[in-house]
């Protein structure tokens, strides 16, 4: 074996480790180790200034009897259930309309619907906070037009979450619309032609052909939107900060608040651990759904 061959064979073996090293080190230090540490800190009493004190499962006992924790879970489900079906269905509807042959300005429409998707949640939250402003907001114009008394959506417990959901729909419909547009390309045109010959109307074609044919896309979009729903933070942080009361407190925001506003690192980690297992469960469900399709 020549020397050149020898080094080449060696470099072939060493190179991959060098190539993955920077990535893996960052992963270990800022992802894997923190996850494990979160589990541990969750079993301690730790205020932001002191040192952690091991307390076993005390925090978990506290969590299960913490009404705000349960409230935050309910709110997370509420937000997700309020956003996902609408953004999925309206996205599909928009995509079907846009997908008609020879609609003028199609690229323009698509760009308009998609534009909010690239806007940051912070910017969107600010714009919509100002839209909902009870004194000078855009909603005010609408109220005075219909002669209704102005309502402060964001500071009314029953209306704050619907306001967040509305904002989210503006932000997210473009996403599902674009994915559906791609999904619709895969539906063979012959199906529609055959249905037309059989005398099916537009509505029947939509329910009997389009919806079944884009089912894989629907699964995919729904999964992405559920993930988004469970992890929403910025929008709520900017628009309501969980209020009024705890009416819009969701789980990720509660974790943040406990840790960095109230300095309860131990208990916040308990909540984070619980959230980790909720995410795990969600992932397993998803994998199952993905396999079914």
């Amino acid at each position, binding site marked *: 074996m020549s020397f050149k061959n020898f080094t080449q064979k060696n470099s072939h073996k060493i190179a991959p480790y060098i190539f993955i090293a920077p990535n893996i080190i960052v992963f270990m230090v*800022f992802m894997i180790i923190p996850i494990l540490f979160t589990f541990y800190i969750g079993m301690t009493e730790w205020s932001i200034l002191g040192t952690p004190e091991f307390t076993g499962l005390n925090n978990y006992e506290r969590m299960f009897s913490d009404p705000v924790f349960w409230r935050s879970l309910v709110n997370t489900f509420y937000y997700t259930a309020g956003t996902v079906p609408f953004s999925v269905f309206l996205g599909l509807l928009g995509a079907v309309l846009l997908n008609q042959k020879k609609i003028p300005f199609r690229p323009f429409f698509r760009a308009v619907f998609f534009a909010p*998707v690239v806007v940051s949640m912070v910017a969107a939250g600010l714009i919509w906070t100002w839209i909902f402003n009870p004194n000078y907001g855009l909603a005010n114009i609408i109220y005075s037009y219909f002669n209704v008394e102005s309502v402060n959506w964001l500071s009314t417990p029953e209306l704050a979450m619907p306001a967040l959901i509305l904002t989210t729909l503006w932000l997210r419909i473009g996403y599902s619309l674009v994915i559906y547009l791609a999904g619709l390309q895969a539906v063979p045109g012959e199906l529609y032609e055959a249905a037309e010959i059989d005398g099916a109307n537009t509505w029947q074609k939509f329910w009997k052909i389009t919806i079944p044919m884009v089912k894989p896309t629907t699964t995919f979009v729904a999964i992405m939107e559920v993930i988004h729903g469970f992890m929403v933070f910025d929008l709520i942080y900017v628009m309501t900060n969980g209020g009024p009361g705890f009416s819009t407190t969701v789980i990720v925001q509660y974790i943040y608040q406990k840790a960095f506003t109230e300095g309860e690192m131990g208990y916040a*980690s308990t909540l984070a651990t619980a959230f980790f297992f909720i995410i795990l469960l969600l992932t397993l469900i998803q994998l199952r759904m993905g396999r079914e399709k």
Partner: protein
Amino acid sequence: MMEKSEALQYKENGKTRKSISYGKSGLIKKSIIFIILSIVSFIFLIPFIWMLSTALKSPSELVASTTSFIPDELVWSNFLDALNAAPFLGYLGNSLIVSVSAVILAVFLNCLAGFAFAKYNFKGRDVLFIIVLCTLMIPVQITMIPNFYILKQLDWLNTYAGLVIPRTAEAFGLFLARQYILSIPNSLIEAARIDGAGEFKIFYKLILPNIKPLIGVLIIFNFMWRWNELIWPLIVVSDERMYTVQLGLAMLKGEHYVDWTQLMALTTMSIIPIMLVFLFFQRYFIKGLVTSGMK
């Protein structure tokens, strides 16, 4: 005309089928759809118009008893006033530094590691890759408490390093890079090796030029993620001089007195860079979304 274009389309598809005549009802249907789309897209644009309209209102008009949709006079100087009132240019600068360096670092490291995971057999490869994949679904909130302490120990709080480096561990990018590089034929790599190319040279001269579309998608998405991100800067940064655009905006809103003309002017300026990226690279954007489901 309708009939002709329909017929043409069938021809293009290489199918010989009698064209279906939609006639008048087809035209009416299309007009209705067009009108619906126009109305809905106007509704979608309203928040943007409202943002601009507020940014250009005079303070007296902003608090007038009747709210107007389009301002009577356009006060462009609001933008300058807003820039003077808040150190927003500094925030913009920070965001640019963070986003651009994060893009360069993340794209390079993801492609490099993706190459190794795709084209080498080494011990622990599959285990490591599965571990990385498992973190796909983990949001920042689960790791942020230990990360805060790790960054504190490293003295990385309030630094660009703290803002950029931890976020380069991006499972989506790595996953995508590996998938894409898998499709490059092994024979090309073998041929380069026989020609005496070193391993890094293979990556640099052979792999990188062959994955340009992937790099385009990764650049755009990493830029968008980092530009729009709030939670990470919120944890890492407390010094106002290190605020990013999103953090600065969120903090301005949290102040007791909020000047909404100025805040909307700043919001407008915060959206412009990402909108430009979107408009210029729209195709990559949508392609990336569709093929990977990122965002």
